[in-house]
C-alpha cells in the first residue's frame, strides 16, 4: 500500500489509531514475517500521526493457512498460532489485539474501520486482493532516509518486568549474547533447510568465546526442538526454554541482551527492529532485492557499526572474529 493510501485517512488528531490486519489466509505463520509486519505498522502509524495501534489477527478455522503453508490445517493451527502469538505484542503503540476466527465478526469490524476512514495496513483494497508486503524494507529505508530514525519494536507487552528480573537473577554483570542458530531441519514444520546454519561451528565458537571471555553469557533462543543436546553441555550457556519459558520471554530477553548473534531468521528480525547490536549471518542473497542493499553490504541503511550483516555461511573463526570486535566495542562503551 502506498503512503498516499495511508495518508488518505489521516486525521491531525494524535489519538487516532492505526489499524493492522494480519489475515492468515494470505499472511504466513512465521516469526520474522510477523515482526516485519509489526514494524511496518509502527512506521505507517508514525507517518500517519497515529499514537495507537489496533491489530486484527484473522483466522478461518476451516482454512487457517495460506497456499504456501499447506501444513497448517484446522487440526493444528491452534498450536501454531499459540506458539507465534507473542510476536504480535511487540509494538509500543499496541492498544488492542483481536484474534478473530469468525469471518462475519471480522467482516463487520472491517467495514466499520473502512467507514471511519481509519489508516489501515494493508489497505482495504489490498486486503480484498490478498496483497501484503510483509518482507520488504522499503518503507523502513524511506522513513529512515527522511527522518533519521525508526519507531523500533519493544519487548512483548507484559514481559518487560519479567525480563529485568530474569537478567538480575541469572545474568548480573555478564555480557549477555542472545543466540539463535536457524535449524529448520529440527523444527516442527521443516522448511527451506538450505537456510540452516552449521551447528557444529556454533558449538566450537561458544566454547572458544567462553574460554577467552568468561564474562560472556550465551542465551540460546529457539523452539525446544530446534537446538541439539550439545548445547546443554556448552560452557556459559543458558537456554530459557529448558527453564519453562516461551517465545514471549525469549523476545523480551533478546530486547534486553547486549548483543544478538544468529542466522538470518525470525530472531534476527527482532534484533534488527529493536535496534540491538547484532551479527546476522547466512543471509539469503535473494533477500537483497527486498531490503534495498547489495549482496555483501555490511549494514542495513538504518544500521550502525555494531549492526553487522554477514552474507555467507558462517564458521567458528568468522563468528569469533566478529564477536571479539563487537564485544570489545560494546564493553568499552558500557564501561565508559
Amino acid at each position, binding site marked *: 500500500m502506498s503512503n498516499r493510501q495511508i495518508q488518505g485517512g489521516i486525521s491531525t488528531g494524535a489519538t487516532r489509531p492505526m489499524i493492522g490486519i494480519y489475515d492468515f489466509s494470505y499472511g504466513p505463520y512465521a516469526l520474522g514475517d510477523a515482526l516485519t509486519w509489526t514494524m511496518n505498522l509502527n512506521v505507517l502509524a508514525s507517518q500517519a500521526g497515529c499514537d495507537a495501534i489496533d491489530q486484527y489477527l484473522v483466522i478461518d478455522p476451516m*482454512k487457517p493457512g495460506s497456499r504456501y503453508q499447506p501444513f497448517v490445517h484446522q487440526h493444528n493451527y*491452534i*498450536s501454531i498460532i499459540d506458539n507465534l502469538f507473542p510476536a504480535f505484542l511487540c509494538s509500543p503503540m499496541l492498544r488492542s489485539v483481536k484474534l478473530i476466527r469468525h469471518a*462475519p465478526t471480522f467482516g463487520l469490524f472491517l467495514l*466499520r474501520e473502512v467507514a471511519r476512514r481509519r489508516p489501515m495496513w494493508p489497505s482495504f*483494497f489490498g486486503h*480484498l486482493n490478498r496483497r501484503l508486503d510483509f518482507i520488504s524494507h522499503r518503507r523502513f529505508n524511506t522513513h529512515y532516509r527522511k527522518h533519521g530514525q525508526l519507531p523500533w519494536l519493544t519487548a*512483548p507487552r507484559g514481559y518487560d*518486568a519479567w525480563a529485568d528480573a530474569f537478567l538480575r537473577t541469572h545474568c548480573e554483570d555478564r555480557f549477555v549474547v542472545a543466540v539463535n542458530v536457524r535449524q529448520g531441519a529440527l523444527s516442527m514444520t521443516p522448511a527451506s533447510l538450505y537456510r540452516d546454519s552449521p551447528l557444529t561451528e556454533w558449538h566450537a565458537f561458544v566454547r572458544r568465546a567462553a574460554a577467552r571471555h568468561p564474562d560472556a553469557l550465551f542465551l540460546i533462543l529457539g523452539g525446544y526442538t530446534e537446538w541439539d543436546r550439545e548445547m546443554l553441555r556448552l560452557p556459559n550457556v543458558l537456554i530459557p526454554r529448558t527453564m519453562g519459558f516461551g517465545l514471549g520471554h525469549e523476545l523480551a530477553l533478546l530486547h534486553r541482551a547486549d548483543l544478538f548473534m544468529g542466522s538470518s531468521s525470525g530472531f534476527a528480525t527482532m534484533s534488527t527492529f529493536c535496534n540491538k547490536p547484532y551479527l546476522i549471518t547466512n543471509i539469503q542473497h535473494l533477500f537483497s532485492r527486498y531490503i534495498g542493499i547489495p549482496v555483501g553490504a555490511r549494514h542495513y541503511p538504518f544500521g550502525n557499526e555494531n549492526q553487522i550483516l554477514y552474507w555467507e555461511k558462517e564458521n567458528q573463526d568468522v563468528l569469533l572474529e566478529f564477536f571479539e570486535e563487537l564485544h570489545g566495542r560494546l564493553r568499552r562503551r558500557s564501561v565508559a
Partner: protein
Amino acid sequence: MTPENRLLLSLRWLINLTYRGLSRLAFFPFTLLYVLLNAAHKLILLRLGLGLVRVGVVKGAVVSLPRDLMLWFGRIFPRPPGRQFDVCLRLPREAADANLQDVLSVVLMIPRVRSIGLYWDSSSLADDLALLQLKQDRSDPVVSTTLHEEIGSRGSTQFLEFLHADHEEFALPVAASRDGQTLLKRQAGAAHVVCLNVPTELRPLVNAIAGARPDIRFFHFSPELPESPRAANNQSFFGCGFTLQERMALVQAADAYVGSFDELGCTALISGRPVILLGSDAGEQPDRISRGEIAMWLPASMEPAALRNAALQFLSHHFAPGEK
C-alpha cells in the same frame, strides 16, 4: 422449526455456498462481496440475539491469570451449549507475570470462542463492545453491567463452582494431546501414571506418596531439589520445555492428578480424572471438600501425615496396589 431458525439455516447455506465459491475466487470484487455478506450475516446474528459477548476485567491483583481465566470461563459459558460468543479482556498496561501467551492458550482451548480481544485501553474496549453487543443489551443497564466481571474477584467461591461443574467446553489441541499420550506411553507403558504438582511447602509429601506406591509412575514439572532423595518412580519433566498446552495435555493423559488448584488442577478436573487438589484457596474451609469419588480438595493446613494418608487412600481406591 421457527421462522428465525429457518432464516438462520438459509443464511448458513448461503454463506457456505458463497464461501466455497469465493475461496476459489480470492480477488476483487468477489472478496468485497464476501466481506459484505459476512458483515450482513453478523448484523443478522446480532438482530436475532445470537451475538454474545463476555467481558473480563483484569486488575493488578490477579495471582495467576491463566488459572483465574479458566475459573471464569467455567462460569460464564452462555447457554445453550454450543452457542458461540466473543470474549474481551481488559488488561492492565503494566503486568508483572509475563503470561499473555498462556492467556491465549487457555482461550484457544474453547472452540465456542469466536474472537478474543485483548485491550489495554478502556475507550477501545467500549468502542468494540458497541459493535459486538446486542442492541437491547446496550440499552439495558442491568444486562450491560452483568456483561463485565472482574476476573479473580470471587475468592473461594469460584473454586467451589469449578470443582462441582461439568466442563465439556474445553478442548486441547490434537497435536498436544497426541504428544502427551505418546510420551506417557513411552515412559510408563501400561503402569498407572499420576501427575504431581504440589506447592513447595508440601514437597516432602511427594516422596512419601511415591515411596508408598512403587507400582505407580509419578511425574511432576518442578525442578528436582538436590538435597532431597527422589523415589525411582518419581520423575521430573522440568527442563523439557513444555508449553502450557503441552503440560495440560500431559495432565489429561495421566490417570490421576495430585496438586495445586492452578491451571493444571483445572485441566485435571476438566479431563474427569481422579483429582486431589491441595492448597489454601478454600478460605475458611476446615476439612476436605469432595466431588463424589472423583475429586477431593484438601486444605494446606492439614497435618502432613493426614494429607499423606488421605492421598494414599484416594489413590488406593482408584488404583488398587498390583492392579494395572
